[in-house]
């Protein structure tokens, strides 16, 4: 026992000395008052998908605000208490603003925000606000609708597969918008949904796509963070709609287009407003009109005439005159849920728990 104690003590001493004698990299004197901003990522910044898109936004923030900001990131953060720790660590390292990019972080954002009232927290895709925390998201539905047009024109089997993460309103909304887009040009087509219960798992996502392809779909769309489903479509000689980023590298012969997030547009605006003191906890909801949402350029794989059809609707969206969820909308049983002349309010969109006609799948 004595020897253990001696060794323990001496190790502690050496460590204490090492810590005492050195200068931490984050304690270096800043000539200017830099604002340190933390990004908590669900995936990897190199996932070529969701987190990649966020990281591009972060890089844009650094480019736009230059010396006034310093950003730190933490990748592959699970939606568990670990993310609470990651955020607390970031505050410990001097972060004043924290962006957390996944729905499942919500509970923990709230907890850490309430314990650190002087820090501002911005949570992507959630729905709760407090004095120092809020959320940001946008109408990716618009781009999904447009990508649905492309898929609807391309399909030959009239069956389209959709690899989906969790059956939460965000994903359901996207599936509905995509299906409405598909059926606006091809009323015969159906969209088959396969749940994976993960945001980020290339193998699982790919397996789900393969299962859909086995059921006879010839196009794969996705609400997933990686290119797994694209690869499955490529390998089967089918076609695909990506998500988050241009995925043509992963599936050059399959990929047609993808709904895109331009997170930088929001990050720059949000950080600027925090710097000049005009930030409020009003949730941010960006649209195609605001430049937060976009559709990736159509590739050569996309069907003839798709570009014109897309541009026509996209122009209306940019002008703010196109509503994806305008009635009449029928649910899966064929019943009219949203009558002609009305629409789905943003509040109802955020709580959407039903599929439109043309979707084949279940929300448990």
């Amino acid at each position, binding site marked *: 026992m004595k020897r253990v104690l001696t*060794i323990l003590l001496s190790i502690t001493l050496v460590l204490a000395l090492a*810590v005492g004698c050195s200068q931490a990299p984050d304690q270096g004197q800043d000539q200017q008052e830099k604002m340190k901003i933390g990004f908590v990522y669900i995936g990897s910044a*190199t996932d070529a998908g969701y987190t990649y898109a966020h990281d591009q936004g972060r890089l844009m923030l650094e480019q736009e605000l230059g010396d006034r900001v310093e950003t730190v990131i*933490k*990748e*592959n953060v699970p939606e*568990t208490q670990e993310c609470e720790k990651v955020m607390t660590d970031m505050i410990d390292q001097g972060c004043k603003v924290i962006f957390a990019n996944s729905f*499942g972080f919500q509970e923990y954002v709230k907890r850490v925000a309430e314990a650190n009232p002087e820090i501002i927290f911005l949570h992507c895709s959630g729905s709760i606000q407090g004095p120092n925390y809020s959320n940001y998201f946008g109408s990716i539905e618009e781009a999904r609708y447009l990508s649905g047009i492309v898929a609807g024109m391309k399909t030959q089997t009239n069956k389209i597969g959709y690899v989906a993460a*969790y059956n939460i309103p965000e994903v359901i909304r996207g599936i509905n918008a995509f299906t409405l887009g598909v059926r606006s040009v091809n009323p015969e087509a159906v969209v088959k949904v396969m749940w994976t219960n993960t945001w980020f798992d290339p193998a699982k996502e790919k397996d789900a796509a393969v299962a859909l392809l086995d059921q006879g779909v010839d196009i794969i769309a996705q609400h997933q963070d990686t290119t797994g489903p694209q690869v499955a479509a490529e390998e089967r000689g089918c076609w695909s709609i990506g998500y988050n980023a241009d995925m043509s590298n992963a599936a050059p012969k399959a990929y047609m287009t993808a709904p895109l997030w331009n997170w930088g547009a929001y990050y720059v605006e949000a950080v600027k407003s925090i710097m000049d003191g005009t930030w409020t906890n009003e949730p941010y909801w960006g649209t195609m009109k605001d430049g937060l949402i976009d559709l990736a350029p159509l590739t050569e794989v996309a069907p003839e005439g798709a570009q014109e059809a897309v541009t026509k609707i996209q122009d209306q969206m940019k002008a703010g005159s196109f509503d994806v969820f305008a009635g009449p909308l029928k649910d899966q049983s064929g019943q009219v849920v949203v009558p002609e002349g009305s629409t789905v309010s943003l509040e109802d969109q955020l709580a959407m*728990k039903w599929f439109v006609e043309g979707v084949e799948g279940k929300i448990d």
Partner: protein
Amino acid sequence: MQFRIVKKAEIGKKKRALIFLGSIFAALFVSGLFLAFLKLNPFQVYIAMLQGSLGSAYRIEQTIIYAIPLLITSLGVAIAFKMKFWNIGAEGQILMGAFLASYFALNYSHLPRPLLLLIMFLAGFVGGALWGIIPALFKTKWGTNETIITLMMNYVALKWVVYLQYGPWKDPNASGFPRIANFAESAVLPELMGVHVGWIIAVLLTILVYFFLNKSKKGFEIAVLGESVNTARYAGVNIFSTVVLAMVLSGGICGIVGFIEASAVEQTLTKDITGGVGFTAIITAWLGALKPQWIVLASTLFAILIQGSSYIQSAFGVSTYSAQLLEAIVLFFVLGSDFFTRYKLIIDCPILSRIKESGK
């Protein structure tokens, strides 16, 4: 030229310590090359790792929070390992402990806090112990291979918790997101000196396991059984009851980790509750030579390594994968060095031996 591996005789403590230190330096050197390849100054990174894990009260607390489950789980598996019963099932035992404790947390939150926490503590122990008894019975009754059984039972426990999380226990207020509701305040372990009281449980368990293994009759019987079943039988040790008792304790202690993590850290049950600690603990238990006093040291050092590498990710913008690679390099050398405490490498080289001979 030829290489031969020869078993060494027992080596002294001094030599063993030297080999250990040597392995640390070798690890630091190789990771240094890797860091230099990433265009980082290795010394700065190592110092930052220490600062990130020990540089402030908050960081020390975080390191301790990592160390608690690691230490307790290592103690648990060490009891089984001492008996040469290869309990690879700590993950499952933690999950089942967490499950049973969560059952009471979710359904009896109206009970007074101390009473509910005590019930949850016992439930955690029972949950883990049940998952430990099963492989013990299989082994003693039918001579099954406990490594396989305990390993496989991890997945049974995991799938069970996944089923609960995505099915019957799913929080209806989470708008479809598969998570179990948070525990009420009465089911959450309080903090003492900045860290949840799990650390007190860890300290007490270390002392208890130390005395159990070193000073009690049963502890001695476990060690004898580990050395040789026939000797134990000859000495009149009841093999059945000893194996079962050891696995009740081993699994039960791991189950307590499930209770602590669910109650104090996660404040709910999730399928990720173990954080892989059940496997890491196997390493720390061996690094600590299955002795509680050394396991404390091994777990603490390991927690410093984890917390430190987590820190450098944000401080230097090192990716998760690079940080994990650093952890792996350290482990590779430290565990690999164990080889040299037991074996030595002899190089048969005709030229060398001729030179040696001619020198004589």
